[in-house]
């Protein structure tokens, strides 16, 4: 029953994006954003789009997450309230 895998992955997407938006620690937010990118990559594979899956994996986990962590290391780590 492969459609159940699709449904569970999409619900995971919504859950991780909620956690990213609500967390106060910016380093944790960027790491969970990397996990969000990886789950999105598997969703692309389930929709038969292998090129997009490769691109999202390389760009999301390889470049975007690293750039976020570099920026956080040069600026604040906690979100001020």
């Amino acid at each position, binding site marked *: 029953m492969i459609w159940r895998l*699709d*449904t569970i992955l*999409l*619900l995971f*997407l*919504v859950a991780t*994006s*909620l956690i*990213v*938006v609500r967390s106060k620690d*910016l380093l944790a*937010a*960027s790491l969970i*954003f990397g996990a*969000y*990118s990886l789950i*999105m990559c598997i*969703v*692309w594979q389930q*929709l*038969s*789009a*292998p*090129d*997009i899956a490769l*691109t*999202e994996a390389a*760009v999301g986990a390889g*470049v*975007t997450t690293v*750039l*976020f962590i*570099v*920026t*956080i290391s*040069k*600026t*604040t780590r906690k*979100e*001020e*309230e």
Partner: protein
Amino acid sequence: MSLSLFLSKMGTNFNYVVAITLFTIGLYAVVAKNNLIKKFIGLNIMETSCFLLYISMGAVKGGRAPIWTEGMKKTTLFVNPIPQALILTGIVVAVSTTSLALSLMIKIYEHCGTLDAEKLKRMETE
């Protein structure tokens, strides 16, 4: 239309509903959060939700990835290839704007000492 019809249509188009949910979550992060980096993460979530909507529109039940390998005939069912080609360009544009925005934030922190949108607005009007 009746409630059961509405819910069954939501079930068929589940990918679309998740895409607009993610769009709303990203929009909330852009509008309601004060930190610039958090706003930017929200913008990224909005972009990936648009990609999800677009590629789900091109999916076909039982379709294969659009790559010709051995043993495929002219009657094989393929997935729509055009949205994937357009989204490839979209992902590159997204990563370009990400890198530029993050380097601007580094400079803002060097000059103003804070990344909070309210404090920056007050500093500007002093």
